[in-house]
């Protein structure tokens, strides 16, 4: 209110140039960007360069490393660890598909059918995030324990015979098998699928469903022709947000798996932190990065939602 009673300051003489007065310094955006961007350049981009350089170095811990452009490290690493690479892609793809199948009904439920329970269900989806994911992953050891309820039930229903035959489990147990690792990956990254799906489902105009019904579309046809195509942006970002971290994960494979379920993340971690073979570890990490970036670019192009990024 005081501004109204105060006398206005004398008008500045009319300036001849037409510069917008609000944009004072030309350099303001650069000053605003500088600290954060510098941080990302030094601690995100520069490390990538160091990693690329380390991958073509030779030497030992005692004598130090030198850049010798030894690209053979890449071939050796690929020749030795291609099973782990393939396994990572398979496990991550399986977890992504499972997340989509499990997450879609829940996202749909929250967006269209939850009514006044909407906020509560939303909280229940997000709240587990705040319990350390390692503690929650360890809980799966209890749930899938050899003499637990789940394994007993699956055994008496002869489900484990089927999964044994498929090679997903071994010897009537679930822990320390691929099934346990994929189950853990699916569990850990499910919220990353549900949230983008929900966001894109929620934007759909409810009248479109009514219109489809008026035009004699059955519920399933409405879903196939209207709802699902309109939720594609959510499907694309959800699958990316699930697949990328799942492919690089080593926590689930270590806690719920065995030596036969080691993923590429486990190899990189062991090479870096225990074996201390830095060139091989850097080469593996570089291949993983390149593979993921190539897959993501291809996928985004194919699904035609480049504006997503």
């Amino acid at each position, binding site marked *: 209110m005081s501004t109204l009673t105060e006398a206005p300051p004398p008008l500045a003489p009319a300036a001849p140039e037409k510069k917008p007065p609000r944009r004072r310094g030309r350099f303001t955006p650069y000053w605003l960007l500088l600290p954060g961007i510098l941080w990302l350049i030094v601690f995100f981009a520069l490390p990538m360069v160091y990693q690329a350089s380390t991958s073509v170095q030779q030497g030992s811990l005692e004598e130090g490393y030198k850049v010798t452009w030894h690209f053979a490290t890449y071939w050796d690493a690929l020749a030795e660890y291609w099973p782990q690479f393939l396994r990572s892609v398979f496990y991550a793809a399986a977890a992504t598909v499972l997340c989509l199948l499990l997450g879609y009904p829940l996202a749909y439920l929250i967006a269209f059918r939850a009514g006044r329970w909407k906020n509560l269900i939303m909280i229940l989806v997000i709240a587990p995030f705040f319990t350390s994911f390692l503690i929650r992953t*360890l809980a799966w050891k209890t749930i899938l324990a050899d003499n637990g309820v789940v394994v007993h039930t699956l055994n008496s229903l002869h489900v484990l015979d089927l999964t044994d035959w498929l090679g997903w489990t071994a010897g009537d147990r679930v822990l320390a098998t691929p099934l346990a690792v994929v189950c853990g990956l699916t569990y850990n990254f499910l919220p990353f699928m549900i949230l983008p799906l929900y966001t894109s489902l929620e934007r759909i105009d409810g009248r479109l469903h009514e219109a489809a019904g008026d035009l004699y579309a059955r519920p399933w046809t409405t879903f196939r022709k209207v709802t699902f195509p309109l939720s594609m942006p959510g499907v694309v970002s959800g699958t990316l947000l699930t697949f990328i971290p799942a492919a690089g994960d080593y926590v689930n494979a270590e806690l719920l798996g065995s030596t036969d379920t080691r993923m590429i993340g486990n190899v*990189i971690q062991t090479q870096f932190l225990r074996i201390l073979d830095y060139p091989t570890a850097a080469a593996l990490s570089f291949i993983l990065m390149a593979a993921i970036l190539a897959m993501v670019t291809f996928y985004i192009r194919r699904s035609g939602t480049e504006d997503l990024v």
Partner: protein
Amino acid sequence: MPFVNWLKRRLVVIAGLLTLAYLLLPNIVVTVFSFNQPKGRFNYEWQQFSTAAWKDPCGVADMCGSLSISLQIAVWATVGATILGTMISFALVRYRFRARGAVNSLIFLPMAMPEVVMAASLLTLFLNMGAQLGFWTILIAHIMFCLSFVVTAVKARVMSMDPRLEEAARDLYAGPVQTFLRVTLPIAAPGIAAGALLSFALSFDDFIITNFNAGSTVTFPMFVWGSAQRGTPVQINVIGTAMFLVAVFFVLTSMVVGNRRNKHKA
């Protein structure tokens, strides 16, 4: 077949609720097993009801120390990432400048990179520079990966802001600093708060990047990781349950407060 029809109509609801159960099952197990009295070193099998761990949450060597390190890192990483990220978001939304595309991809890439790649490359940098691994290297790494998430959250909010509000403030003779503090900042606050909350959660729970760059410093997730090999104390479940309850409590109160405010406005 009335039952089949009933089932058909509710198929989505039933499937959704089953997924919700799958999401919550581990939390239920964590809570139940915080009242367990395990026989061996591992807390994976139910033995006997006991409240011993709840009465003595810090009864395990080093656990509460690691919890305090994690909290300190999370607080400072949140402060750092929120300040730097908010500055970047304002520059991106409000100004035209060169190298805009490069800045955008530099912010997007950390979110599209597997954690293990960032962790490994950052470690090569620190090793090459001869940096002492520990608290500071963890903090540097956490600010780095939280930054992008803050920018995304704040940018969305600032973009949806009506620029005429600031023009109105300037027309009413508010100075640039006053306009920023009294108009711009309060409107951007929910976005900044969301970014800060996300940073805190991400930093507090981060394991992979921390594990590579921690040296001999032990954060809470690293303590849990180590205990998975040595033996899991019940106190871990106590902390996990308490964190879950605190989070639900905070979200519920913020929702109740928000609802009241909306009612006042109406």
